[in-house]
């Protein structure tokens, strides 16, 4: 969590100072790179996504509105022109919340997959800004430990949506690009809003479990829409 709070200040400092980053030169000493050369060709990231889910349907599964997910990302540059580039990116976010609903244990597992284009602009040598609008697909599994039926109940559903975000990536370590592909390490922060349609919460025991002809428990629906922050570390080539 410390990284999440420190990163904006770090980015702001970079923007204000226009500082360049000293890069290890495979041949000789440190030197400045030309702007635009650092934009990643391919990139993999690992981070944390923090979403705020204000929907009341989230309440049975969590005693607060936050949904923290681990986030894996992949990206590849498709087109580059001077400081600008267009990349294809994708993220898989996974997280779970658990709680009790009136004494019954509950949990909500969320997988979210987003894939789409990302526009990048290299503002400074070690810093590029980006924005993306990505179609989103989410799979939720809600569970309720039914004390009366004596079995867990589940509701599994897909939902679809879109999310838009903007952020910045700061190169914390890298080689000069160009003739030789060498790894670069990035610290990335983004914020945006993710819209997802509602998932139905009709919770039923798995087939063959529980009393015969058990009717579903209807907890309505949950929408995981809401603002989010994602901080991650990325490795690019």
């Amino acid at each position, binding site marked *: 969590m410390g990284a*999440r*709070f420190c990163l*904006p*200040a770090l980015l702001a400092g970079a923007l204000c100072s226009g500082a360049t980053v000293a890069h290890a030169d495979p041949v000789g000493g440190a030197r400045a790179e030309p702007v635009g050369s650092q934009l990643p060709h391919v990139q993999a990231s690992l981070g944390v996504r*923090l*979403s*705020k889910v*204000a929907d*009341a349907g*989230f*309440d*049975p599964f*969590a*005693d*607060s*509105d*936050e949904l923290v997910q681990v986030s894996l990302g992949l990206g590849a540059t498709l087109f580059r022109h001077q400081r600008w580039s267009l990349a294809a990116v994708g993220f898989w976010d996974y997280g779970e919340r658990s*709680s*009790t*609903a*009136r*004494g*019954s244990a509950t949990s909500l597992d969320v997988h979210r997959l987003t894939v789409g284009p990302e526009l990048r602009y290299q503002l400074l040598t070690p810093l590029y800004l980006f924005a993306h609008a990505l179609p989103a697909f989410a799979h939720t599994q809600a569970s*309720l430990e*039914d*004390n*009366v*039926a*004596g079995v867990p*109940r589940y509701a599994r559903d897909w939902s679809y949506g879109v999310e838009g975000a903007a952020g910045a990536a700061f190169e914390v370590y890298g080689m000069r690009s160009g003739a030789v592909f060498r790894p670069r390490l990035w610290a990335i922060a983004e*914020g945006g809003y993710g819209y997802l349609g509602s998932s139905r919460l009709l*919770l039923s025991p798995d087939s063959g479990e*529980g*009393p*015969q*002809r*058990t*009717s579903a*428990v*209807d*907890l309505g629906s949950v929408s995981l829409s809401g*603002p*989010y*922050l994602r901080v991650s570390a990325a490795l690019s080539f």
Partner: protein
Amino acid sequence: MCGALALGCGGRPSTWDESFIPADSGSGLAAAYGLTGSVAVLDTSLGRVTLLNSPAALKLGSRSLALGTDLAAARVSTDRKTLFALSRGVQPQRKADDERPQLMLIDGGTAPKVLQTYTLTEPMSQLVLDPKNEWAVVYGASGVVQNPNELVLVDLSLTGADALSFNTLLSFGGSPKRFTFTAPLAVPGGDPRRFLIVERDFDLVLIDLADPGRDAVTVPFPKTDANTAGTSAQVVYDADAATIAVRVSGTTSVLLLQLAEPAMDGQDFSVVPNLVDVGGVPSTIDFVHNSLGLRLVALVGSSAVLVDPDTATTQSVQMPAAFTGIRRITNELNPAAVPSADGDVALLYGPNISQIAYFNLSGAPGALFRSIEPYDIGVSVKNVIDVPGETFFDRKILETPSQQFYVLDLTTRESAPMRTNGGLTLEVAPDGERVWAYNPGQPGFASVDFASLHPVSLIAERPVSNVFDIEGVNGQRTAVALHLNPGTIDGIGATVLDAFAPSTANARFYSGLELGGVK
């Protein structure tokens, strides 16, 4: 940074953290109440009631209604159409808008809703209902200073503060113990009027419901034969004769109170007391009619003592056994019968004898009675349960202290014994077509159809706490076998069956009903 802080806010309503714990009998509340078209399950931790209804065959719907804060008592009206909920409200009151004590009426039909709410001035803990649904009484204040003899009478035909009458009973000591709402008594010199009879430790109070604010009449009980303070054991009345009889514990005398014309100015009526010795300590009393007119019958040992309330003369009839219970069955045998003209028929029973008897008082002119017909049914009877409705009104259910019950056909005088393999709780369907038997905490239960007397045994997949027979939205009847576990953290579950053709082969199971409507 701002975004991060914004994401860090937000919680959920605390109601999600309140476990559902079904009420247990120790709290004075039942976990569930059967109504005509719904089942009410108390959810005291959220201060609400969840009403289960049947929108279609084998379907169970639920709706939760907020009750007042700190529920003190809940009762179902005699016709099962209304649930009454008495709450103490927020105590102590700190703000002007703190919830006040209240009495809430909830329609228990197929579309449950709040019918009426009466706001009270002080928190009360006890609730008594009029079988005719005209009055309710709340009492039992719980403030710093308590007046145990203060009654609040609620006229259910009115709304708001106009409905409330505050009545403090003058006392020779003691507090209210039992209440009896009478039918309209034909008081000489006035219109028939209903009374509320309040039995206290040492006296009885008559409140004229035509003018409840007027001073009540207090009548002390006679002392016991051992010269100690007498207490009331039973109160009965006859509406046409405007006569009340009180069985006083520990004495061979019965107190008769005849309501008569006013004896002085300012009275609407007067009370003429009379103490009649019936020759032994009676086990029960009731009013009956024979060819000689109205008589009070007192069961004393193996005798039935008939008392003429006008002259206080007594006549004794030898019984075949020492019956201790009596139930008039005149109109069950013949709905068109007029007891005052035709004489009564009474069913005699007792928890310590294995006989029942039909006591026919419709004898020839001048005769005390026509016949006493005993039947040895092999088991004792602790209670007689009426069957409502118009189809099987001539049936009675004889509840025994053992694990069986009898369905008694009063017309044919045939009894059908029903044996069970566990304890027994009986629930007669409000339509009067069948009776449900179950043993709380066990999965087995059964339905006995009065037409065929065929028992259908059913085994639910979870232990059954209650069985209720409710009317569905489309006129179907639905049996709701609740799965509650009073006093423990649990949920609301139910097995739902077609009451006309109950079968676990097509029953549906519902649970998680406590989660509905949580906000």
